[in-house]
């Protein structure tokens, strides 16, 4: 039953990709080959790979460092640092890129883009890693220290392996986000496979060329997913009951330095973009939005995001439950299937859904139902990942206790498994909310007529070149996105709270 449900969700998630492949082939495979196998594809692939590798490497190191600093080092106002680490989730990368480009118009290209993407993506690593540090077993590290190993050695050999699966899953999301992002590479003028797909798509009514060009992207996404699975399989399971110690105390200047570094990163991620937007709005005043437009768009954005996230979380449950508990080739296929949608440019998925829905379910075309389905396809892995980790963290022994006490399998699942995994599931829900708030291409194409979100409002201004008028919308979009980021930060278990809940 559950396997069937998981398979159905996986199949639904992969349907748009199948449509794209068929579309790419519809004009004959030699035409597809002519589009895919040319020097420009290689150039774009190299651009994409170097960008992704760089952003991922920096995000991984930075994310683990920030997670370590904000959980394992004693700092004043400990919650604050976790909140700051989450906040950049609220900033769409295209808003950050725009802020950068309007401040330093000449400084665009590879490295500025790396900075923008890293700063906006690093919470995808930090957030799950904070969770992993919160439950990591430090007794082994203590043992290593007593055996005369340095702190660094103990960290690398004992602590790091325990958080690496979570950090790796986060890094996968960073990689997928980077390869599918259009807005920031376009603004920073670094051409990637995704900007290549957009260019082809926009230059022809004939979709097959764009579909063909997105095949290498799908292949790249799939190999990333497989690579991450390999790495994850090598990481051991963490012990069910761990002993944790209070965060360790640095010297005064050391503490100040760490706090300053964390503040600087947060400032770059969530402070600088709105500041640049405000500066911009001061020098231009045409095409302003009315307050009621903005309020309506903000309400629509929030409502759509909340519903889409709830549906996504529900649909992700069977998959994440199964993947956390069992290992099978089939489950691996299903789980990987859910990831590809996230890694494809939104416009490609949106077009596939236009064709699919008109062919299969014409009555949902341009309704909210189809829009929600699109969001689910685009955001499924954001929910599957954290839920899977959360399910896995519930010890099997607790199940067994519940069963011995005479509870049936379903009540046991609900009372023990679901309840235990709830913080992780909630984290997934919030990640989806933050993602849907920022979604643009699918929203533009699939929304019912007259439905405006903050992202579509922002798009409307920027296509006009009315960047001044776009600024308040961008700031509002960030402000609305801060809400899920804040809740997410509140929900993260720090070592202290984790201990308390373990006592219950």
């Amino acid at each position, binding site marked *: 039953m559950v396997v069937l449900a998981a398979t159905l969700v996986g199949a639904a998630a992969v349907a748009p990709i199948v449509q794209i492949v068929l579309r790419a082939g519809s004009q004959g495979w030699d035409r597809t080959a002519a589009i895919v196998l040319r020097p*420009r594809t290689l150039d774009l692939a190299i651009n994409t790979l170097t960008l992704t590798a760089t952003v991922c490497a920096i995000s991984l190191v930075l994310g683990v460092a920030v997670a370590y600093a904000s959980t394992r080092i004693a700092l004043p106002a400990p919650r604050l640092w976790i909140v700051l680490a989450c906040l950049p989730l609220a900033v769409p990368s295209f808003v950050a890129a725009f802020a950068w480009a*309007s401040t330093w*118009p*000449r400084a*665009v290209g590879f490295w500025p883009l790396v900075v923008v993407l890293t700063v906006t993506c690093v919470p995808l690593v930090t957030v799950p890693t904070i969770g992993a540090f919160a439950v990591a077993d430090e007794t082994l590290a203590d043992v290593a220290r007593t055996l005369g190993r340095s702190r660094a050695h103990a960290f690398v050999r004992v602590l790091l392996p325990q958080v690496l699966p979570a950090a790796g899953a986060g890094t996968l999301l960073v990689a997928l986000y980077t390869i599918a992002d259009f807005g920031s590479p*376009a*603004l920073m*003028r670094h*051409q990637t496979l995704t900007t*290549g797909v*957009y*260019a*082809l*798509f*926009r*230059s*022809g*009514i*004939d*979709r097959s060329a764009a579909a063909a060009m997105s095949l290498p992207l799908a292949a790249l996404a799939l190999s990333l997913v497989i690579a991450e699975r390999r790495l994850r399989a090598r990481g051991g399971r963490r012990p069910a009951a761990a002993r944790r110690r209070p965060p360790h105390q640095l010297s005064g200047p050391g503490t100040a330095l760490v706090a300053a570094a964390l503040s600087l990163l947060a400032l770059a991620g969530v402070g600088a973009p709105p500041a640049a937007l405000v500066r911009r709005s001061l*020098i*231009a005043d045409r095409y302003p939005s009315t307050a009621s437009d903005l309020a309506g768009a903000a309400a629509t954005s929030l409502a759509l995001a*909340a*519903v889409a996230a*709830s*549906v996504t*979380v*529900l649909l992700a449950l069977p998959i994440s439950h199964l993947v956390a508990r069992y290992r099978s080739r089939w489950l691996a296929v299903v789980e990987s299937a859910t990831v590809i949608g996230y890694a494809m440019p939104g416009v490609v998925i949106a*077009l596939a859904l*236009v*064709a699919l829905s*008109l062919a299969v*379910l*014409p*009555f*949902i*075309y*341009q*309704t909210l*139902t189809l829009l*929600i389905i699109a969001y689910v396809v685009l955001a499924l892995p954001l929910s599957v990942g954290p839920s899977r980790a959360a399910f896995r963290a519930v010890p099997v022994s607790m199940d067994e206790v519940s069963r011995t006490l005479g509870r049936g399998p379903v009540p046991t699942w609900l009372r023990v498994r679901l309840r235990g995994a*709830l913080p992780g*599931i*909630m984290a997934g829900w919030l990640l989806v909310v933050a993602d849907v708030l920022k979604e643009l291409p699918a929203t*533009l*194409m699939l929304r*019912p*007529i*007259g439905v405006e979100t903050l992202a579509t409002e922002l798009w*409307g*201004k*920027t*296509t*006009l*070149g*009315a*960047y001044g008028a776009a600024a308040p919308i961008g700031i509002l979009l960030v402000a609305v996105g801060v809400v899920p980021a804040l809740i997410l930060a*509140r*929900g993260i278990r720090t070592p202290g709270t984790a201990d308390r*809940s373990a006592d219950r």
Partner: protein
Amino acid sequence: MTRTRTRTTLYALVAAGSAFALAACGGSAGSAESSSSAATSASGGEGALVVYSGRDEELVQPLIDRFQTSSGITVQVRYGSTTELAGQLVEEGAASPAHVFLAQDAGALGAVSEAKLFTTLPTATTSKVPAKYTSKDGSWVGLTGRARVIAYDSQKYKEADVPAQVTDLVKPEWKGKVGLAPSNASFQAFVTAMRLKDGEAAAKAWLAGLVANGAKSFESNGDILEAVNSGALDLGLINHYYWARSEADPKTLRAQLKFGAPGSTSALVNVTGAGILSAKAGPQAQQFVDYLLSDAGQAYFVDETYEYPLVGSKGPANVPPLAELDGPDINLSELSSVKETVQLITEAGLL
């Protein structure tokens, strides 16, 4: 405490989500048998005129509001980019809920026309516009004109320094200094015009020359103007109104415009236009298109979007009049051979 509240919130949301999913299933079961009328019901509201607009909401919604007030007809507009909407129309085919397509360039209109989705407009409508600026077969009608120009950094160059022929941009003195938007419909329409007027070989050589001369690719005309205006780029190929309707007074901008030599391809004037999508659209669609060509409609475009009117002669502020521009002798409905142009631009390595 926090945990309890979080859990309650989650349960509430999950419940809401399930209710929504159930409602969606129920809804789809109920309307399955009436899927033929789905297109109209999906667009919401019986009897409303549905317009797909590739033109920006900020620019055309006020005009549409005026039309609604004066005619009493309800208009629902789906906004998007011209090419994306044209693609969507082709994808939707006969199932499309749209009645009118309002597009930013002749190429996209031509492509929808080639997919046989437009009905033929009456001569009374098409004859209002000079033949040069509208379709040959009456499948769509031109509404406004837009000139191709070179935006230049006025802090570095005087107008006389900037070439009046885009073909000069492949000269060594402009190496690495020129920006263009290869995926943009206006740029592509320009290359098509060059193919038609100066020949395939000339267009191909020009593109190759630009690539060899280190021309920089941008995503849009807006990005190019932004780059020139901030001093990040010396010259950029754009349309005149990006500058004319800019968010600050255009005369005060760092970016200024150079118009192409009269009569040459460099002086190309492209058009925006509209077509009616299906016979079932009814007289309302025709009324709407006629309103766009009326004095009120044309005056609106001149004053608010700074485009050239195709009916009447009063041009927009700050730019030379249409007659002075003297665009090349090309029938714009021939600009629909976008596919061949895209092929050429792709081969040049710009796409």
